[in-house]
C-alpha cells in the first residue's frame, strides 16, 4: 500500500480551557492528540487535533473495538 503513510508516534494531552476571548469562564475539558506520521515519500509531519470529551469517548471506543477484533484474528 504505497499511498498510505506510516504511523510513527502519538502524544496526547488532557486539558481544561479556562477562558477565551468570547467567554470569561469556560471550564471546558478537551483532549489534544498529536500524531507523528511519515507520508509515502518519507517526510515526517505532525498532525494535531482536538476532541471534546464525548468525541474522545467515541475515539476510545473505536480503539477498543479494533483491539477486540484483533484478538479474534
Amino acid at each position, binding site marked *: 500500500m504505497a499511498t498510505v503513510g506510516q504511523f510513527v508516534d*502519538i*502524544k*496526547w*494531552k*488532557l*486539558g*481544561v*480551557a*479556562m*477562558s*477565551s*476571548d*468570547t467567554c470569561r469562564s*469556560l471550564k471546558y*475539558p478537551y483532549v489534544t492528540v498529536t500524531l507523528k506520521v511519515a507520508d509515502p515519500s518519507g517526510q515526517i509531519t505532525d498532525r494535531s487535533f482536538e476532541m471534546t470529551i464525548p468525541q474522545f469517548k467515541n475515539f476510545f471506543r473505536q480503539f477498543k473495538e479494533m483491539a477486540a477484533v484483533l484478538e479474534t484474528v
Partner: protein
Amino acid sequence: MAAGTDPAQPGGGRGRAPHAHSGRAAMSSRSQGAPQPGGRRDPLFPVPGQPRRDGTAPPAAAEGGERPTRARPQHTAPPSAPRAGRCVSRAGRAAMAAAVSAAALGKAAGVAYGYGESGGGRGGSFLGPRVPAEVEAMARGVQDVGKDTFRRLLKVAVNALEGKDCKESVKLIAESTNLSEEQLAFLISGMYTLLREALRLPLSTFKQEVFKEDLKELRIPEDFIVDFSSVVFGNRRPASEGTALVQRSRLPSVQDFKWRVDVAISTSSLARALQPSILMMMKLSDGTAHRFEVPVAKFQELRYNVALILKEMNDLEKRSILKIQD
C-alpha cells in the same frame, strides 16, 4: 533607476537650472554646495535672470508662489496596470500594457532630473518633464471624442481610482461608440494616469490654475479641462484619497484574533502537568489562518512588546516627522 544622478548629463539642460532656493543644490551630488549669494557669476549656478549656459530661457515663474523643489519619487507603473486593466478587455490590455510600460520608462528617466512637482513652463508640468506616453496619446485622441463619450470615459477612470470594478461600463461604452479597443485603451489609461498623478499632489501646493495651465499645454479641449478640474479639485476628491490610502502596497493584516487560556492537566509524558498555556488563532487578510500555542513566559514577552509598541507609536505621533507641511 537611481534618483539623484549627476545632473551634468547631455540633453539635461533644463534639469540643470536650479531654482532660487537651495533645496535643489542640496539634492545635487556635486560638492559645490549652495548657489552663490550676492549675484556672483558662477557658470554652473546661474542666478535667475541671467542667460543660461546652454542658451535656453529660464522656465517662467508662472505661479505667484514659490515652487517646491522636492524630487519626484520613483513611480512604478505596475500598480496602475492591474487597476486600469480591470476596466479594459483583454485585447485592449496588451496595447495599454505597452503604453504603461513606455510610461514607466519615461518616468524613470524623468525622475533623474529631480524636477519640482507643480510648475508652469514647458515640460515642467505636474506630470514631470516627460509626459507619459498614454497621456499624450489620450490628449491627441480626445480631440475627436464627443462630450458625452468623454464624460462616460471620465466616469470609468474615476471609478477605477476609487477602486470599483468597471468592466461593465467599459463594455457598454465599447458597444455604443465606434471607438476601437486600442483607442479605448489609451483614452482610459491616459485619463487614469493623469488623474492619479494630479490626485497625488497635496492641495496646499497644487493649485487649480496650474493644473489647468498644464492641461492647456497638452492641448486638451477647454470643457474637458473643466471636467478634469472638477474631479481633482471638487468634492469627490476625498473618495479617491480614501481609496488611495487603503490600496497602497502592504503586507497582509490581521483580520481576526481569537485566544483561549488552557490548563494541561495530564499528558502522555507527564501525569500531573498542571501547566497553563495560551492557544491563539490569527486570521489574516490574505485568507490564511495561523494557530499556535504560547507558553506563559513567551506571553509575558509578547505583552511587554505590545506595551513597548504602543509607547513608541505614541512618541512618534509627537515627533516632527509627522508634521511635514508643504
